[in-house]
């Protein structure tokens, strides 16, 4: 197991290297510099800034310096907020996104899983049709339609919840529901089709033949098999959650990582954009690894390759 984990960690290196290289060259080859648009800066100031951040050196020197820096887990200084490092910026804004993401994914599991399982157990019943309608609607209504609609109903008409901003638990409700909708749909679909498969397998028939009650068969025998693909979905789900938060954070004015990313991209804050992109890909890789380890524990038949 340990050897395999180390192997997987080593396999991550080329991915991280590729992301770092792509972002580096993409951003450096782009027209415009982080300081060129600032009218307030005099040429001497810009020259000094370029000197300070090493932007006047040859491209390959900058590239190797950047890679060297990365080896020390240092994402460099921000070119927009002078005196702040990218590490600091990520550390400050990430907790908001994590809070939002965790809340959304918990809602998705709590709603999606029972929905999918019930619709498989009561196949072709009203519950099934209702659940599948919810699943299709969930993927068809984009978060930037759902979010404002919820705001319109619950904040501007009923005055139950705050329409935007961040801080208390009340502020978390609408954004996390908005973000969770698509995941409810995915999870309901995945668990339904897996549950259907499990229910038609031999060991379930055996369990029924022993005379167990349907409830016992489902909770004790079928459930475990049905949740496995949901666990493996959790890895890619993290990557999707992170992109999803970009929009949701914008709708509800939440100071999370996605919000900072868009701001940085529009302001040509090279190092912040590169840093966040890199951070997201590393986080996704680690999450996928954790999910695979968990899968190996849940289902001994899945060999950890």
């Amino acid at each position: 197991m340990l050897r395999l984990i180390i192997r997987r960690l080593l396999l991550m290196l080329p991915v991280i290297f590729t992301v770092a290289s792509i972002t580096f060259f993409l951003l450096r080859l782009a027209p415009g510099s982080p300081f060129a648009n600032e009218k307030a800066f005099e040429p001497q100031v810009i020259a000094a800034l370029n000197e300070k951040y090493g932007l006047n050196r040859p491209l390959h020197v900058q590239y190797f310096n950047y890679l060297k820096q990365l080896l020390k887990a240092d994402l460099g200084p921000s070119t927009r907020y002078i005196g702040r490092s990218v590490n600091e910026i990520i550390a400050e804004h990430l907790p908001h996104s994590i809070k939002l993401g965790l809340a959304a994914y918990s809602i998705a599991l709590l709603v999606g899983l029972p929905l999918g399982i019930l619709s498989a157990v009561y196949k072709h019943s009203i519950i099934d049709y209702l659940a599948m309608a919810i699943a299709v609607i969930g993927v068809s209504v984009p978060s930037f339609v759902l979010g404002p609609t919820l705001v319109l109903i619950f904040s501007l008409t009923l005055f139950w919840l705050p329409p935007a901003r961040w801080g208390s638990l009340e502020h978390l409700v609408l954004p996390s529901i908005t973000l969770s909708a698509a995941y409810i749909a995915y999870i309901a679909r995945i668990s339904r089709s897996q549950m259907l498969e499990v229910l038609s397998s031999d060991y379930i028939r055996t369990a029924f033949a022993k005379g167990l009650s349907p409830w016992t068969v489902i909770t004790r025998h079928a459930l475990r098999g049905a949740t496995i693909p949901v666990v493996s979905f959790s890895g890619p789900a993290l990557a999707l959650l992170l992109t999803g938060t970009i929009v949701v954070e914008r709708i509800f004015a939440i100071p999370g990582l996605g919000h900072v990313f868009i701001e940085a991209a529009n302001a040509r804050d090279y190092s912040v954009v590169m840093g966040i992109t890199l951070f997201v890909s590393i986080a996704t890789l680690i999450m996928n690894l954790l999910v695979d380890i968990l899968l190996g524990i849940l289902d001994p038949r899945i060999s950890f390759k």
Partner: protein
Amino acid sequence: MQLWKDVLKTLKHNRLVVVAASFLALMSVIVTVGPMFVSYSFDEINLDATNEPPSLKHWFGTDPLGRDIFVRTLIGGRISLMVGLIATAVSFIIGVTYGAISGYLGGHVDELMMRFVDLLYSLPHLFLVICFLAFFSKDLLILFVALGAISWLTMARIVRGQVLSIKQQEYVEAARACGTSSAKIIVRHILPNALVPVIAYTTLTVPSAILSEAFLSFLGLGVQPPLASWGTLLSDGIISISVYPWQLICPAAMMTATLFSLNVLGDGLIEALNPRKR
């Protein structure tokens, strides 16, 4: 093709699919020819008629610049559907070619080609697309290519898996024994049979590409004004949601209905193509 006749028959029995397909057909026609019959153009500014509610004159009302939202929704739909179709076509061409070659050649080449796909798979795509659009130009063409370039990976994997299993079938062996060239075997014998599951996946690529475009336009990185797409209309509509809600609701309803129909159609196809569920 007996298979396609069967699929069509199964689809016709699914009432929801028939409704969805009819809606999409109607939508495509309206979006293409509709703007010609409306007496306003999508960028016609009329400052004497700003923020008007829906009426007979302006079916969906007007926006803060007095532009007719109905025409803008149609033009937006045209662009959104075009993005969806072109991105899907790009991903189909690249994905099928790549997957077929990889699967057919097999061995080390296959291993190498699939490692490359794995590598691309683990990149944070949307983040890279956002970098690209933000730093270079917000050109519509870049958007098409970028969205197509994201979705070919899954397509390539599906095709490769299919080709790997089909190439061991006896009829392929027979063709090879007759001296048929590799290219001809791929095009004539393997691809037609491998494409069945790909078609279903392709149908579902269209809504996901439309969604990605709307996502980018919503963030101000996609289609640029005065041109409109569903994403930009929604992002404009949100600003005045408390005062003029129809500016958001009308385009949102159109977009949701279209995405819903596309998803229903894709799901219906998958179900119809799955012999176990038929």
